[in-house]
């Protein structure tokens, strides 16, 4: 009986949508706007687009080519290129495993916020009342209601990573739901994934577009957009700008996890992946830019609102202290009055100076936030001030969910595809195998729903994949260019596409990209060494804000394990294969001598 032929995408569109769904993720929404703001607004686009063409698209093309040619997951594909390099695929699988463990917790938080949006008043809009109904809860008063809702009600966060606490039941339920949905999407492999990506890849754009219209019509949004687009060209002379641009392109495209190889392995042999690689990379970068316009409109709205609230509070303080009539000071002439009052009542004003805040629109706009802080705190704060806030909240968190789920599909496929290539595991049915993988990840990931879970999440996010990926992709590109040979690779592509790749690609693969990657890797390592003991942001409930704390010893050990465990797969597997071959060669020699003796 013939073995079942490999699953395929029903049509090339499914493959393109799957890649788009995977590449366009939360990083486009919460990392790129931050980088744009930090590195000079519109000017950041120059290093970003340059890196896209020097590094992003060539490496993306490379991974798709390997997957489509070898028609195996990452372990099988690299073993086929060279048996000593099976470890490269294994390193990708391990890194993907770490990613799968912690990524779904973000989806769990999105679900939590989504379900809490179905209330007449959003729970993060106002502080809850304390037990004797005299005022809001103290922790909430010291911080803001949105921060309180995130740190206390969503996470129930502990003061440091050492204090563990118990599992948050609501979180655990949402986490379970996130894994159930992931299982539902991948239960039949590419047959089910292929249908799901039509929705997960396209609907976020609908929401982004709606938010764009809502965003730019908000009061004060134009301040934010202007701030973003005014380029500060002097930032281009800062090397960090270029390095951040390169790193962002690299991680945004999801290179090195093995997901692209896995997706491409389900392609028809003659699929034109060259055009698809360019299209997907451009869509990914375009989405980053598009979402940063939306984010800056929201920033502008929030900053203007905070600034006006600050002015209002100053006005009230002045009115109360000097007992002036209510309509004498308006928001527009607050500063004039400050000057006037300072001259006429200098002593009284001096007493007041500690209570008076410094209201500055620029400083409000320049508070840049990234990551979960942006997605769950800043955005929810902006949403609560919009009219019909429940609707906007639901739309926003549905978008976050789709982006996160789309990326999860790629992550989990990167684990399942290479494992299923092993004959031992391929006899188990699709559904059971996928179910077991999801169950294992669910159980291991429950640790992130405990009180200290957010700190572990940050550790995994910052250290789980960065070093490994840079290393993996560097080895990948060097292997293909020099070990496997550019000429052989050329021929393979010609076999698949019908024409040889342009000289531009070859220069990138053989020269520019490896050099860039070596540079990035060196810079990353130097940064780690120079940075001293790694720190994390711990929530201090007495002060109502985050403060930096150093990781304890077990934390540092764990960070080391995370980085080393995946990278070490490469040399360890090479050694294992070498040892196996030597044993085999020795045995073969013995057998031959026996035979010759017998004959």
């Amino acid at each position, binding site marked *: 009986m013939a073995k079942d032929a490999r699953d395929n995408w029903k049509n090339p569109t499914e493959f393109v949508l799957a890649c788009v769904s995977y590449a366009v993720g939360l990083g486009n929404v919460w990392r790129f706007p931050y980088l744009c703001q930090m590195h000079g607004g519109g000017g950041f686009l120059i290093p970003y687009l340059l890196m896209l063409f020097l590094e992003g698209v060539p490496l993306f093309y490379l991974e798709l080519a390997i997957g489509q040619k070898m028609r195996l997951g990452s372990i099988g594909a690299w073993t086929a290129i060279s048996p000593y390099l099976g470890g490269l695929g294994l390193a990708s699988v391990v890194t993907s495993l770490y990613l799968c463990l912690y990524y779904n917790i973000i989806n769990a938080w999105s679900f*939590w916020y989504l379900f809490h949006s*179905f209330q007449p008043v959003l729970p993060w809009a106002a502080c809850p009342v304390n037990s004797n109904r*005299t005022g809001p809860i103290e922790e909430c008063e010291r911080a803001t209601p949105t921060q309180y809702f995130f740190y206390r009600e969503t996470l129930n966060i502990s003061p440091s990573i050492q204090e563990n606490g118990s599992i948050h039941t609501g979180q655990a339920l949402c986490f379970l739901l996130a894994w159930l949905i992931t299982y539902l999407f991948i239960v039949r492999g590419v047959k089910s994934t292929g249908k799901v990506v039509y929705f997960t890849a396209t609907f976020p754009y609908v929401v982004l577009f709606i938010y764009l219209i809502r965003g730019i019509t908000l009061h004060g949004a134009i301040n934010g957009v202007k701030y973003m687009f005014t380029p500060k060209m002097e930032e281009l002379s800062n090397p960090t700008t270029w390095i951040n641009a390169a790193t962002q392109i690299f991680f945004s495209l999801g290179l090195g996890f093995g997901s692209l190889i896995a997706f491409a392995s389900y392609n028809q042999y003659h699929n034109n992946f060259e055009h698809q690689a360019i299209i997907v990379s451009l869509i990914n970068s375009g989405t980053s830019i598009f979402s940063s316009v939306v984010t800056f409109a929201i920033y502008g709205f929030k900053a203007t609102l905070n600034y006006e609230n600050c002015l209002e509070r100053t006005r009230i303080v002045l009115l109360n202290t000097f007992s*002036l*009539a209510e309509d004498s000071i308006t928001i527009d002439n607050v500063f004039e009055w400050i000057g006037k009052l300072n001259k006429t009542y200098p002593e009284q004003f001096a007493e007041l100076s500690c209570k008076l805040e410094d209201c500055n629109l620029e400083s409000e706009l320049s508070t840049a936030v990234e990551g979960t802080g942006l997605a769950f705190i800043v955005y929810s704060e902006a949403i609560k001030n919009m009219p019909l806030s429940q609707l906007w909240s639901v739309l926003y968190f549905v978008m976050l969910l789709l982006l996160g789920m789309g990326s999860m599909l790629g992550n989990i496929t990167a684990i399942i595809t290479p494992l299923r290539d092993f004959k031992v595991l391929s006899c188990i049915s699709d*559904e059971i195998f996928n179910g077991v993988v999801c169950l294992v990840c669910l159980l291991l990931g429950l640790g992130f729903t405990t009180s200290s879970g957010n700190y572990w999440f940050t550790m995994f996010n910052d250290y789980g994949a960065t070093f490994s990926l840079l290393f993996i992709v560097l080895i990948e590109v060097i292997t293909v260019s020099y070990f496997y040979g550019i000429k052989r690779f050329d021929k393979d592509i010609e076999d698949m596409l019908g024409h040889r790749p342009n000289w531009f690609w070859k220069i990138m693969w053989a020269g520019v990209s490896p050099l860039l990657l070596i540079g990035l890797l060196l810079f990353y390592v130097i940064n780690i060494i120079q940075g001293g003991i790694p720190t994390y942001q711990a929530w201090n409930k007495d002060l109502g804000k985050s403060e930096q704390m150093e990781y304890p010893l077990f934390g540092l050990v764990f960070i080391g394990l995370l980085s080393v465990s995946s990278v070490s797969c490469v040399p360890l597997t090479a050694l294992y294969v070498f040892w196996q071959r030597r044993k085999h060669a020795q045995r073969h020699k013995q057998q031959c001598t026996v035979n010759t003796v017998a004959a």
Partner: protein
Amino acid sequence: MLEKIFFFLCFPSVLAEMLCQPDAPEGFNVRLSIKTALGEEAYEWNRNEKFFFQAAIAYAMSIHLKQEFSVSDVLVCNETPRVSFWFVVTSPANPLLLIDKANVEMAVRKSRNRINSALLLSDTTMEFVGALPTLAAPFIPATPPWLIVFGVVIGLIAAGIVFLLVSTVVQKKRKKNQKTDEEDDDEEERVKTVENRNRSDGVYNASFSDDEPNTQM
């Protein structure tokens, strides 16, 4: 005689001035932000509004201390253009005795809602400086609403998974049945062909055949 009448007429206002002073220990500072609260429909702060305020406070005191207070028991002084003033409450039995701050505060807290709505203001726009506000009790529903939505979504997802798994099992069974049917057909065919000695099946062992079918030289 005239002097006595004059003295008795001036006495209350003099008394009021003595009892009601800014920073009086039994007094409260009140700040009203009428224009902020009502915007276009803001009313002028005048004697009539002051009277209304005094009546509301008297009402609150009556409720709390279960004595009959009247408007004249609430003394207001030191009005500013901000619209802020101080007030003290005197006992109905003895106009020289001030009701202590704690009782006034409790009375105001109890009836805060009524006092606010009398003047069309709220907790933020009518500030009793130093008094703690009474916030409305939060409405806690029996089941948290998020759990309801969660239940619906997880129910749908679980149904979807069960449906997919069941349909896979059904499909596999159907394929197996089809295959066993096909295999039966194949076997029959093979039996027939063996009987018919069809040369295209199996390896043809030439040593057992006649040479006749081969063309002779």
